[in-house]
């Protein structure tokens, strides 16, 4: 017997035949295919019982109801709440992706103390007790030096219990310097105060209007309560109501409007006065309102007839005279016309003259407190707390003027002027702010001229951030006391901007806090109690929830069960009772501070020779540009004509591009008085020649790899331009120079 090559081959052949007749190859093929479909890194959600918890989204002030889907105790989806008065099942892209914020790598997981240099990003995790004692130690030093007024607070909002707890803390401590992030709501409030002689806020009866004239308001780009506006827009399409968009750029809103009227940027208010001119001259105005309820119509009439002729207005605005006349006729011919303003998402308060002009247009048509028009709503007053307990130090501190001069002789109608803060700090030898709290805000990203803002923050010796995320401001802080995020906490939401029924919504926790965070309301109560004395006594509540419950009183039960409290009986006052307490008159030309006497236009900074173009910004639903920044899902939806890789695109008219020798996708240097940046060019027919448009919401330097260093922050390129009456930021753009790189 000899084992040779043939016998070996035979053995192999037998083996092959046997293997083929055994299950081995077939089973292995099957198993390996299953194996390749179940990689260990493929996420497999764990199974469990599905349930829904209702709450309110507080990522913006819009007040949308949300239904949060959970599997057992895990949050898996955020949906719009059906039948909610604000959004009725609708939800915006940010709200939908809000879940990513919960587990975001940018979240601050525990209180942090800075160990390296400021902004170096070196932190040490500390306990909450240590964080509170660190902060109270710093604050005690200010009181020991008798300078409590040097404590300031920047809050994302001036409304709601949490913001008011911070404001109260400052008052008890001895400082008036509570500042809130401004918006068009501040300008609207002031317009009401000046023209109605009464305090209030505005609501719009969008559902019933049959002609909406928008002066640059991004109705479908995030203005007001975004999901509510989307619903309203659907309603107009069904009812055949008309929507006209006046804007210098073909925004999403303009594209969806029945008519788009391109206009020179910054001249919208003048167009409103021009329309007023035509309406009055053709006697199309509401005689009942004008004759019986206004005191100074004749003066207004003279002003607009003399100063805002269609020819002159056409010259300033770039809108044809015939278009102006026809638009005025159409607006006046509608049965329930309504005009609104506030550019884009309404983050910049804007020119008071513009607000006055647009409001006057509504008044001319009697669209105030009438169906389909605007409603003047009483100030919300559910926060009624006992007077703050004062001691000698705090009383003295409270007598000192505010740093930003809001409420001073110069700006008597303003409550806070955050836009003035960095200028004032930078021009002082020693910063008038020695300690700063930042809550619900990211000023080092959102403030105009971020370079200046950063310089001013460098001069503030102590900064405490209450942010949930490692944003630009938290990055520059000395101490971070992280707040829960919106899904983890209680929060009262007052009437959303523009919503026409006084209401309160309640956001409640849908999940236990994921990290070692604390509700900022609880944090500030704890700090007050640790400081003790009259400060501690000013906070009689055991915790934030206890404070919220007591503040909301008999509404608490309804809010806890239904999440919504609405003043169902609310009806706007009749004209006879609508204006002021002492007078019953509407002021077309306010006595105390006449916005019409000022210059026609707010100028864009920079000289025309060095900066031949004009840079404006545009807002998009896909780019969150405030305290909350885009989560990864949302930034993924941004078109590559806006952001490609890390490059931002600016929009440019083909004619201007030709003049500058620029083509689609070219790199270019964009410079303004404030900064110089590199951008890419997107040629776009929907923008006026000579104008460059840049999206807001990009160019973060902080946060995570999904967001940081993508594009340019528009705020870096622009400065604040004070409105002469309000002192609020009225900048609508800035002069700029674009050159091939």
């Amino acid at each position: 017997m000899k084992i040779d090559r043939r016998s070996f081959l035979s053995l192999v052949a037998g083996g092959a035949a046997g293997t083929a007749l055994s299950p081995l190859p077939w089973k292995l093929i099957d198993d390996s295919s299953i194996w390749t479909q179940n990689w260990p890194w493929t996420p497999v959600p764990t199974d469990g019982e599905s349930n829904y918890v209702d709450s309110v989204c507080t990522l913006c002030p819009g007040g949308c109801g949300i239904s949060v889907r959970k599997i057992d105790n895990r949050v898996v989806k955020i949906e719009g709440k059906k039948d909610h008065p604000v959004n009725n099942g609708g939800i915006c892209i940010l709200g939908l992706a809000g879940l990513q914020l919960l587990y975001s790598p940018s979240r601050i997981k525990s209180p942090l103390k800075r160990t390296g240099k400021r902004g170096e990003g070196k932190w040490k995790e500390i306990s909450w007790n240590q964080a509170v004692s660190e902060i109270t130690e710093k604050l005690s030093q200010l009181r020991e030096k008798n300078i409590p007024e040097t404590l300031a607070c920047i809050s994302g909002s001036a409304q709601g219990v949490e913001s008011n707890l911070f404001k109260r803390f400052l008052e008890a401590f001895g400082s008036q310097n509570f500042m809130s992030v401004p918006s068009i709501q501040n300008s609207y409030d002031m317009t009401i105060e000046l023209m109605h002689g009464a305090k209030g806020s505005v609501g719009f009866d969008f559902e019933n209007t049959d002609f909406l004239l928008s002066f640059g308001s991004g109705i479908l780009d995030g203005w007001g309560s975004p999901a509510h506006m989307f619903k309203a827009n659907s309603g107009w399409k069904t009812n055949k109501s008309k929507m006209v968009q006046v804007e210098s750029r073909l925004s999403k809103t303009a594209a969806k409007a029945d008519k788009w009227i391109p206009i020179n940027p910054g001249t919208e208010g003048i167009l409103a006065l021009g329309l007023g001119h035509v309406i009055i001259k053709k006697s199309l105005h509401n005689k009942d309102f004008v004759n019986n309820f206004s005191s100074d119509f004749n003066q207004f009439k003279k002003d607009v007839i003399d100063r805002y002729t269609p020819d002159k207005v056409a010259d300033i605005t770039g809108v044809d005279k015939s278009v102006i006349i026809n638009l005025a006729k159409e607006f006046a011919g509608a049965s329930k016309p309504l005009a609104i303003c506030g550019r884009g998402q309404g983050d910049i308060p804007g020119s008071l003259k513009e607000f006055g002009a647009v409001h006057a247009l509504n008044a001319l048509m009697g669209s105030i407190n009438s169906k389909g028009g605007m409603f003047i709503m009483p100030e919300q007053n559910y926060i009624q707390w006992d007077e703050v307990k004062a001691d000698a130090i705090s009383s003295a501190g409270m007598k000192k003027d505010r740093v930003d001069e809001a409420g001073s002789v110069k700006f008597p109608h303003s409550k806070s002027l955050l836009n003035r803060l960095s200028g004032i700090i930078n021009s002082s030898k020693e910063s008038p702010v020695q300690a700063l709290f930042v809550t619900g805000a990211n000023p080092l990203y959102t403030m105009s001229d971020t370079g200046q803002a950063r310089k001013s923050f460098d001069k503030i010796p102590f900064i405490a951030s209450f942010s949930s995320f490692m944003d630009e401001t938290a990055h520059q802080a000395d101490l971070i006391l992280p707040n829960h995020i919106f899904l983890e906490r209680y929060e009262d939401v007052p009437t959303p901007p523009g919503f026409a029924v006084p209401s309160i919504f309640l956001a409640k926790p849908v999940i236990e806090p994921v990290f070692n965070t604390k509700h900022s309301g609880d944090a500030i109560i704890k700090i007050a109690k640790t400081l003790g004395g009259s400060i501690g006594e000013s906070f009689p509540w055991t915790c934030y929830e206890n404070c919220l419950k007591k503040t909301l009183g008999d509404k608490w039960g309804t809010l806890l069960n239904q999440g919504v409290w609405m003043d169902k009986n609310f009806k706007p006052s009749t004209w006879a009772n609508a204006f002021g307490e002492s007078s019953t008159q509407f002021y077309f030309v306010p006595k105390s501070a006449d916005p019409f006497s000022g210059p026609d236009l707010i100028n864009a900074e920079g000289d025309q020779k060095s900066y031949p173009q004009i840079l404006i910004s545009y807002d998009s639903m896909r780019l969150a540009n405030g305290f909350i920044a885009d989560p990864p899902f949302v930034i993924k939806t941004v078109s590559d004509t806006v952001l490609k890789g890390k490059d931002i695109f600016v929009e440019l008219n083909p004619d201007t591009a030709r003049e500058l020798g620029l083509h689609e996708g070219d790199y270019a240097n964009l410079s303004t008085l404030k900064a110089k940046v590199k951008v890419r060019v997107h040629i776009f027919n929907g923008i006026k020649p000579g104008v460059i448009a840049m999206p807001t919401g990009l160019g973060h330097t902080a946060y995570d790899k999904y967001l940081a260093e993508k594009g340019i922050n528009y705020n870096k390129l622009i400065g604040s331009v004070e409105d002469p009456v309000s002192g609020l930021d009225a900048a609508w753009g800035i002069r700029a120079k674009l050159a091939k790189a």
Partner: protein
Amino acid sequence: MSKIKNNKTDENKEGASGFIILFFVAGLVLSLVVGWIVFPELLYSQKEQPVNFNHALHLEEVDDGCESCHFFREDGSFSGVPKLAQCVDCHEEAQGENPDEIIFVEEYVAKDKDVPWLIYSKQPDCVFFSHAAHVKGAEMECSTCHGHIGESESSKIYEENRITGYSRDIWGKNIGGFKKNTWDRMKMDDCAECHKKITDKATSVQTKKDACFVCHK
């Protein structure tokens, strides 16, 4: 010479071919042994359930059969293996002296920890299966797919496929894939077998053309 030589060569050839066949048979037998006996031994590892569970005993105590513990939730989804919370309803403390129950109470109930049960019928996540459609809709018996597990007095060994991580019960105990009962295997072919049968009687979208995505997500 040449004749003798030829004869020799033939003899040699016969001897050699027999020898070669022997090698062939040896290879065949060996590989059959490996394929049918050794391979399954190597493919599966044997694991014991964290707690030895007596289905028969529990089934006597409950009123609603299998659904007493393996119930449908309000939304129609199937709860599958019970969570600790359900067990605690009866077993907050040990009810007897059964060592398995004592282990369960001490190790899991007292520590408020869910039992990491090994699930014999677990399918990959990329397959969608609705218990409600089969049990409620088609009124099928649990045992049609799961066999008479309800009558078992102790937990059988869980055999885990070393490649896929799934239980041997999916492919079936028989490595050749042969089955006697409907519950012997839970592969796609077994789903298809039943769905094909009932196509005439009921709507069975799964067997229509382009129906892959009805089950495969």
